[in-house]
């Protein structure tokens, strides 16, 4: 099933049709009968960085899991999730498995728990490298080393187990894993909140300079965070979620200059009050 393509006008050209990277329309998620994400409409264009901000329980993480088709058992999504023209909502697991790690990468919060303690970093990287990029064992090993250097780790980290790395190193490895399949979109869910301030800055810089996607374009980023300052620093656009609803979205500078929804206003005021 093909989602509606977005007509888009480029200056000095005729009208061409370009697929948006990710288009959520009317996405709702029910968790055990309770509506926890309510009619979310959001688009991410290729190469764009979009921040999804909200407090705990606002539904931002569930939205991300919904896109990946990784909702917990009791949750159910309805609406449309278009990924470059493919409908993901209700897609079979087999289809989703081809999308995850290949078209969409995912980085979670706590990299210690997010990596299998019994598998080396290299073993982790082999999952997308061999499955999505079709590399053989030796090629995958070499690609893994290159990738690790790209995210600021030594190439021999392939042989390390997660427990042998520091928090910042683990998060870098997790990002390498997420982009190993050269996805067009990376979803990062609170990637810095388990880290120290100095490490946080490093990870944010890394997210700003992600390796390009398979088609050579920059990787789009959907950054999920509770911290307005972090999101504002990294993102072109910001979407604000509150109580399961997407209450406001817009260009970062405009949204911070003139927040319209009361929750956004409170967020901006709070961030300003605590701005050092």
């Amino acid at each position, binding site marked *: 099933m093909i989602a509606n393509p977005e007509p888009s006008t480029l200056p000095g050209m005729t009208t061409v049709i370009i697929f948006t990277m990710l288009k959520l329309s009317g996405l709702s998620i029910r968790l055990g009968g309770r509506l926890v994400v309510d009619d979310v409409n959001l688009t991410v264009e290729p190469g764009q960085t979009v921040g999804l901000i909200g407090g705990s329980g606002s539904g931002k993480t569930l939205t991300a899991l919904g896109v*990946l088709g*990784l909702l*917990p*058992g009791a949750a159910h999504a309805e609406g449309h999730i278009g990924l470059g023209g493919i409908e993901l909502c209700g897609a079979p*697991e087999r289809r989703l*498995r*081809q*999308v*995850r*790690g*290949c078209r*969409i*990468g*995912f980085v*979670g919060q*706590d990299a*210690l*728990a*997010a*990596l*299998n*303690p*019994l*598998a080396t970093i290299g073993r*982790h990287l082999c*999952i*997308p490298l061999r*499955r*999505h990029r079709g590399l053989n064992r030796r090629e995958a090993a070499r690609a893994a080393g290159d990738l690790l250097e790209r995210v600021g780790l030594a190439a021999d980290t392939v042989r390390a*187990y*997660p*427990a*042998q790395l520091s928090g910042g190193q683990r998060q870098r490895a*997790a990002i390498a*894993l*997420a982009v*190993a*399949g050269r996805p067009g979109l990376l979803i990062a869910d609170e990637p810095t909140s388990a880290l120290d301030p100095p490490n946080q800055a490093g990870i944010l810089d890394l997210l700003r300079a992600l390796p390009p996607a398979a088609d050579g374009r920059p990787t789009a980023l959907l950054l999920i965070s509770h911290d307005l300052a972090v999101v504002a620093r990294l993102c072109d656009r910001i979407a604000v979620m509150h109580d399961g609803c997407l209450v406001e979205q817009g260009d970062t500078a405009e949204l911070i200059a003139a927040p319209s929804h009361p929750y956004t206003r409170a967020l901006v005021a709070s961030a300003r009050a605590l701005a050092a």
Partner: protein
Amino acid sequence: MRALTATRRWAALTATASGLAVLVAALPWLRGDDPARSVLRARLGEREPDPAALAAVRSDLDLPADPLQGAGQWLSRAVTGDLGRSWVDGASVADTLTNAAGVSALLSGTAATIAAIVGVLLAVPAAWAAAGRRRPRAGYAAAALAALPEFVLAAVLITVVAVNWRLAPTAGWFGPTHLVLPALSLGIPTGGLLARLLTTAVEATAAEPWVHTWRAAGSGRRELATALLRRAITAVVPQVAVLFVGVLGGAVAVEQLFAIPGLGRIALHASLAQDLPLVQGCVLFLVVTGVLVGGLGITAHRLLIGPAGQAAGLIPAVPEHRHSPYAVPLTAALLLTTVVGVGLLRDAERVRLDQRLGSPSWDHPLGTDPVGRDVLAQLAHGAILTVGTAAVVTVLSLLVGLAAGLRGGTARTGTADVLNALPPVFVGLVIAALAGPGLTAAALAAALVAWVPLAVHTRSLAEEVRASGYYRAAELCGAGPGRLLRRHLLPAVAGPVVLHALARVPATALTIAGLGFLGLGAGHDSPEWGAQLAAAVTYLERAPLAVLGPVAGLGLLGVLAATPGSGLLTRPPGRLLLRGLRPLHQR
């Protein structure tokens, strides 16, 4: 939460084993009776031994008069391999044990192999289901197998396979065919238990965040299932000692039933004859084996984890709460209550020698026993005896468990680990050897074992509370020990532990029945279920149906005992079973 390092586990293991060894060494004097008298009684059954005979026995067996000296002497000789001589036939204990050890090793080795195969085979579907984002369904089969007591399974196998189908010999030890049924009856329940542990670990592992990461990276189902299973096996390996010691415990009943000249059977006969040197030797042998296997488990765990480091030893996250089918345990409970209710109205005492071993009929729905009593009535009255005793034992062990668990302290952790692994049969053997068999002795043995898991559970809950923010906040509010206990510890601990204790009643009843079956519990004419089954087994070839009553009752109890694995108590026993894999982590 404090946890044990591998070194401390080893230390605890050896310390407890040495403690047990000293206790074993002092056995002859623990009876509060002159060993020389016991010897004469054991040999001749004489009531009033004359002094000359006593002195002769003393010099003959080289018995010291003083307990401390005796225990010391026994221990120092045990180190050199001299375990003394049997009080009954004067044979060297070490020789008897060496002969029997080969038989036992073959039997328990085969059983362990069967258990490993059954366990992993049953756990594979769970891993496959979890990798496919489905809830594992295999749990119930594993729980049912795990709940089957060895002696019940053995009785069923003998009845069906050996007597009815004549596919294997009923008893004896003359060749490979004689190994099949005993190894199966030992291995299958252990395999079920192993599968349960693995399934719980797989479920817990499936809830770990890395599974999400693997899925998000596009991992295939087979790849993920393998990783899940590998992690689960790593987590369960330290528990193999407990499982293996369980096999050794089950071997007592199985060897007895199949008349296999192994260690278990020798220990049982020695205990019934109050032949203490032989009991001492058997217990020592089993303790040492247990410690060795436990050490092997710890070492294997370290090797498996390797450089993955300490975090890999972390206990997996607690699986999501699941709503399990209540239908099966509920049906079992209802059936049991109905049978007992109906049976209680009938006369259990009336002996009709003209109706011995009768088949089921309108008058006697479950037939009659070897002296013509109504089996249904016997079953019901036995239920009151078996389950009632279990209830009393449970209340006692609940109180002791709560008290011991709330006292805290890490020193006891290792001890509790070891005691937790001690099969009740061994305790029953020792107590019967000391005090003579009987229902009270069986209850005492059951109680000595039953308080340990409750104490462990209490302690782990109490540790959780003590580590909680609100407990610390209360301390900083100036709360004293009394208030901390009353307002914060007890309310958090009591509910789950009482539920846990309730859920263990069927298991305790099975323990008591098991001891009764071996003749270590209630006497042979008692309607107590184990004793009743033992009596019926004697007449197996003539009246195979007579075992049905007790087997069905014990089977239903088994289903109930398995309920905590799937019912509202998923959490505590699951965590308890997995406790052993919490060795190397945060403090």
